[in-house]
């Protein structure tokens, strides 16, 4: 899975360089989480995206779309050549996820703070339907500054949604700078615990820790789970790591070459 993650990172760099825009840092920080989820945990069928018993995923931090798309393509939801059309006119890959365009995407996201409420509704529906589906939502750490997240945090706990797992991509950076400087969210684990959530912390780049955390959440009854995944924004490419300027910009040609080299890419576009 580490190898898949490496390839996904190469795809992300390639896609953003081609598109000339997009969110690099938060895509690279979320890559291992997405790979662990989709390749190691979730029950889905790429050939049948609407399979009723599937596990559901919501990218609440919708700007991480490049990583999401790269993972979906590798799973076979759509041809990998589509990745190179990211953000272009007529593409099935919109700048932010759009379920009307992209196979495998459950719902449009991109306006922050809204995905957890949707995940709650999906978890309630799964319970009413008697489906064993589990619902996963990936949140950004800046995103939890949105008030609606905490409305949803209350709702999930109130209704005891133990089929719901939220993962926080704790990469410590947002557009204007460090979360600690822009709007402090700490003590973030204590907040989720206080809201009644089963709360764990893992290294968000350690696939083994992530998979173990997903397993541990399955044993929790009567309350939702929050996995705080400590990550590095821009993970995998030294010049991008921990740099706020790469939140929402594409690499220039020199950065692109260096990134591909560091990620061990064979030259050229994704095959």
């Amino acid at each position: 899975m580490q190898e898949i993650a490496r390839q996904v990172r190469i795809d992300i760099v390639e896609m953003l360089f081609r598109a000339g825009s997009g969110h690099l840092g938060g895509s690279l920080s979320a890559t291992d989480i997405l790979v662990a989820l989709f390749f190691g945990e979730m029950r889905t069928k790429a050939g049948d995206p609407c399979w009723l018993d599937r596990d559901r995923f919501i990218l609440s931090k919708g700007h991480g779309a490049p990583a999401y798309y790269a993972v979906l393509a590798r799973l076979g939801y759509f041809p990998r050549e589509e990745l190179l059309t990211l953000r272009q006119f007529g593409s099935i890959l919109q700048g932010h996820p759009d379920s009307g365009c992209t196979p495998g995407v459950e719902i449009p996201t991109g306006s922050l703070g809204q995905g957890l409420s949707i995940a709650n509704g999906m978890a309630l529906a799964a319970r009413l339907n008697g489906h064993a589906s589990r619902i996963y939502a990936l949140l950004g750490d800046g995103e939890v500054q949105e008030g609606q997240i905490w409305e949803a945090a209350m709702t999930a706990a109130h209704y005891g949604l133990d089929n719901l797992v939220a993962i926080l991509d704790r990469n410590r950076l947002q557009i204007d700078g460090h979360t600690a400087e822009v709007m402090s969210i700490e003590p973030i684990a204590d907040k989720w615990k206080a809201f009644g959530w089963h709360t764990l912390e893992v290294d968000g780049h350690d696939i083994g820790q992530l998979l173990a955390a997903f397993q541990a959440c399955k044993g929790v009854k009567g309350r939702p789970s929050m996995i705080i995944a400590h990550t590095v924004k821009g993970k995998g490419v030294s010049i991008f790591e921990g740099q706020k300027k790469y939140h929402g910009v594409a690499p220039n040609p020199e950065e692109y070459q260096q990134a591909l080299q560091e990620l061990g890419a064979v030259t050229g576009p994704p095959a």
Partner: protein
Amino acid sequence: MAAKESTRVEYGKTLAQLGAENPQIVVLDADLSGSTQTHHFAKIFKDRFFNVGIAEQDLMGTAAGLALGGKIPFASTFAMFATGRAWEQIRQTIAYGNLNVKIVASHGGVTVGEDGGSHQAVEDLALMRILPNMVVLAPADGPETRAMTRWAAAYHGPVYMRTGRLAVPVIYDDTYVFELGRGSLLREGGDVTLMGIGIMVQTCLDAAALLAQDGIEARVLNLGCLKPLDWELVLDSARRTEAVVTAEEHMVTGGLGSAVSEILAEHCPAPLKRIGLRDTFGMSGKPEALLKHYGLTADDIKQAAYKVIARKANHLALPVMDLKAPKMAGR
């Protein structure tokens, strides 16, 4: 005196009936179930009712998730909070995602009364009408509320329906059938067309009766399906009477007055007056006093009718330029 029914109460009762008929129907509220009348459903179907507390943004998101899980969610709160507080949630998820969510919001308009301007939604129809994929409804009476509620449950896609607080006269009987994109002709008349929505439909009928006393025959339409609007009926009526008055318990901007203006300006520029609030908020008071203050009475409609009829004299004959209504966008 005609029988009266409150549209919010009829919504609540119909919802409870639908709950028994269709197990996929779920209902959500944000701590106003007694006011929105979803408590009828909640009492019977405890496992299919979700109160999210005072959290309208979460209300819409949760409803969206339930729709994604195959349920038919009805989400209710006051019109002001549904369309104001949670507008972006509705826009980003329910409308953009084209989800099967029914937003039925009570306490539309100034007849909310004593609670005042903060609670009187006079822009909700505008806020919903601007959204692609969204159907926008405002029933005129109890039977239309029952018909629209049943229709919404059977229709697949996002719907906004406004209900009111007060009991209002019954216009239809229970043979009334609601059809998407269709208005109804309630009274024939060749001198002027009065186009109403919601509680103002009855006021239009009252105004027509007043005009009849003066020998003026008004055609009266109910345009309770604001989006998609019945273009053919609007244009045909404008062409026949060459004078139009719209009436809504809402701003004249963005709602029925705007929708009709847009059609007439492009296709059949008949003299038009819009009855409604003009760039102002509501205020506390008895509903009757507020209707009078904001110019929403039968007499106000009658006066407006006289003005548009007077303008007819100077008006050229009106060709209908294009009768093709636009299709709902759909995704």
